[in-house]
């Protein structure tokens, strides 16, 4: 096996794998290293939403999603459009405000009267006051999509090594030359660091400061319900979807800020928050309240201080953290990272406001002032 690659990507999550796939599509030799299994972190433990209109990458995301199954060669379960229904007036007002923002950006949103909303969401109840219908966006299966990127990358000759944490990033004269792992050293022309919460510790020795804090967030899933026309339905303080199998998978509510060791977090505990999620799902879908909850789980998700992505290139190192909103944007993120690595700038969108420069004036005690501190665990 070769030990030199045009590009090494640290992190086999959805961002790293999409980036690697885009780079491999360019004919570059690519190696992805993951400390565990591909997509084991936030990438496969999220709501599967693909409707992040606020992002400069959104138009490209929208262009790509309908083609992803074909481009990758593997199923992602992508389904277009979303419906958001309200069970109280403040939420309905809020959804209408969001709809207004979408109008402004030119993304079509229908306002739904209660009857139409209930027809579109058969498991909604009499408490449904209406909602909004995104004629854009959608949702996909995170776990299947992560694996699809991984396999598509391999089909293009890319290599993935799992259970292979990067111990150090090697550099000479300010230029990264490769990485050292328990399985030996690998050299590269360029490095992409898309290692989620581990980005900070990996890059600190190079003098690249990426402020990130990780948190644990919880979801629950039920046994299958009859399939709805639009599986991408949420509201009532929840995000999530009905899977193509019919299961209702939803998350939301408070997160727990945690400290992460360089080797990552081993445990993914949940809490009685499952009960608060169950309450909200039962309120949102009264006609599905009899369905059994069959699992809960937690994901580890990193955020920047302003919750916006950190995508930047410094020398031959490209950093990509999507700050908790990465799955849906991943087709476009990979394209942007490919552009940064190969061309030095994103070809399809202006993304300078997502660069690391904005953190230069960050107060050293920002975690304390934002209250993003871990709780005592013992």
């Amino acid at each position, binding site marked *: 096996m070769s030990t030199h690659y045009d590009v090494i990507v640290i992190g086999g999550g959805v961002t790293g794998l999409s980036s690697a796939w885009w780079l491999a599509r360019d004919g570059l030799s690519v190696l992805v290293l993951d400390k565990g*299994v*591909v997509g084991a972190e936030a990438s496969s433990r999220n709501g599967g939403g693909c409707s992040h209109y*606020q992002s400069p990458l959104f138009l490209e995301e929208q262009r790509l999603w309908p083609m992803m199954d074909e481009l990758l*060669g*593997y*199923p992602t379960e992508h389904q277009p459009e979303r419906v958001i229904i309200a069970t109280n007036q*403040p*939420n309905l007002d*809020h*959804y209408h*405000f969001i709809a207004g*923002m979408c109008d402004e*950006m030119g993304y079509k949103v229908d306002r739904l009267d209660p009857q139409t909303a209930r027809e579109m969401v058969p498991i909604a109840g009499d408490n449904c006051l209406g909602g909004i219908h995104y004629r854009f966006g959608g949702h996909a299966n995170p*776990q*299947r999509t992560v694996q699809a990127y*991984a*396999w598509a990358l391999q089909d293009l000759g890319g290599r*993935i090594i*799992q259970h292979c944490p990067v111990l150090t990033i090697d550099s000479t004269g300010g230029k990264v030359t490769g990485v050292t792992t328990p399985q030996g050293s690998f050299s590269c022309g360029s490095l992409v660091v898309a290692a989620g919460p581990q980005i900070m510790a990996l890059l600190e020795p190079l003098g690249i400061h990426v402020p990130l804090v990780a948190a*644990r*967030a919880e979801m629950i899933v039920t*046994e299958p319900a009859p399939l709805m026309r639009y599986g991408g339905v949420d509201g009532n*303080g929840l995000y999530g979807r009905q899977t193509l199998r019919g299961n209702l998978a939803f998350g*939301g*509510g*408070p*997160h*727990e800020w945690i400290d992460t060791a360089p080797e990552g*977090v*081993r*445990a993914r*505990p949940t*809490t*009685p*928050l*499952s*009960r*608060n999620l*169950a*309450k909200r*799902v*039962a309120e949102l*879908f009264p006609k*599905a*309240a*009899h*369905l*059994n*909850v*069959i*699992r809960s*789980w937690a994901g580890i998700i990193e*955020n920047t201080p*302003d*919750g*916006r992505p950190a995508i930047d290139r410094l020398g031959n190192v490209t950093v990509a953290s999507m700050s*908790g*909103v990465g799955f849906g944007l991943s087709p476009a993120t990979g394209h942007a990272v490919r552009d940064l690595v190969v061309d030095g700038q994103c070809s399809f969108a202006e993304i300078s*406001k997502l660069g690391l420069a904005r953190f230069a004036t960050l107060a050293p005690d920002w975690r304390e002032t934002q*209250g993003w501190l871990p709780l005592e665990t013992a």
Partner: protein
Amino acid sequence: MTRIHDAYAIDGKIAAPDEVADVVVIGAGPAGLGAALDAAKAGRQVILIDENPVAAALAGTDVPLWFGGRATAALQAPERLIETLVENEPLIADCFEAGVDVRLGTTAWGLWRNREACGAMPRAMLGISDGQAATTLAFATLVLATGARDCALGFAGWDQPGVMGALAFETLVTRYDAFAGSRVVILGSGELARNTAMLAQARGIDVAAIIEVRDAAQSVFDGMPVRCGHRVIRAEGGIDGVERLIVADADGAEQAIACDTVIMAVDAVPAIELAEVAGAMVATEPMRGGAVIPGGAGEILPGIWLTGAVTGQMGSREDALAQGRNVMALALGGADALPVTADEFDRMAYRNDWLRAFVSTSPDTTMVCQCEEVTRADLIGVQPPNYLARSEHMGQRSLGTLLEDGPPDAEQVKRLTRAGMGVCQGRRCREQVSLLLAMAANLPPKSAPRGNWRVPVRPVPLGVMADWQESAAMRAGWDVWFGIRSQWIPYKDIGTPEEARKMANIHGSGHL
């Protein structure tokens, strides 16, 4: 300096438990009953929780045991079933008499405590449910006497009514008086199979045959129809399920054995669900029945004790009762160490011999996961479920290609194939999935990759699990995602006056 808390973080939002008890025992089998009785006699306040009688709908999905559609209509009358249970287990009446708060028909579906990556719990607590509502229950001492569950291994025709587990059979016969069969074939010949056969005989249930895949019986049977060196070809039946089992002897000669029930008594599996979700370390120990908590009986986490069949120890009712008492004595601080017992039988190797034989006689279209309809070929091929088109590329993918990336990962295979993701929570397939993956990866059974348990460890309806009395703090600090307003500002507005206006409007609960 006062610490600042993120308003949308979990800090302080998980409510105090609805109830606090001194001693809580989960499981009213012999070990749990022994522990609860002794604690009550020692003057402690004790709550004893047992999920039996289980709701008919749950039993119908083979939770918690593999009932295999062979329960009578008695399961539809839970109040009568409670009486039957109490009549059939004199120690329950003893517990009532000793002042134990006995809660039958109550499920312990969650157990949460602070540990790595979680400091949100005000204290450790259980999630329990009586089928109508869920509450939380904290404890000073918790004894998990959760017993064992059935080990299901698939052969041709196993996915029809009348194929069931030995523990479900025992429960239906000895606790519920609700077994619907009359003529059984028992698979396996170890202690579990012997106990099953003796129980059947004692209750006047016809034992048509005891099938052993190995060349010799694995325990002593007196005058019972044991057939060694036999393989199961398939179970055949009609609308009510099994009518006969086709077996082959060592020479391959096939024979049909008429029966209405096939009882799989190859092995039982320690029911470690609650221990695992609480954060106990889990290791695979083939002599103790696979995934168990290392160390066996005793304190596994602060204030949390393990006793009985959940430890992976097989033994008599008397052994379990004695161990329950011993563990409680230890927990109450007045006893010596527990007697150490040696296990010598490699249960996983035995399971594996059976599964290999099943694989050799059944087509690879045989179901592995009944809930999600995943066949053995789909599992080993790592193929997506039926409702997805299988692309040309997909056909070139298999467990083999996954193994090029690293050792087999049960969770990864589960997510890709959906095996184990159904309403029985993988109770009918996780052991066979694990062993099949090990076989395909050329790993010994003890290195078989396993899927983990998550809360709820029993299926619980949304409306039952729901916290309808949610705290004001939870309501006020609830956000769809992280409550970071700047996260949702359209890119073009960043750094413009419009940013402030939108920040002011994207508030509180309801970000998208």
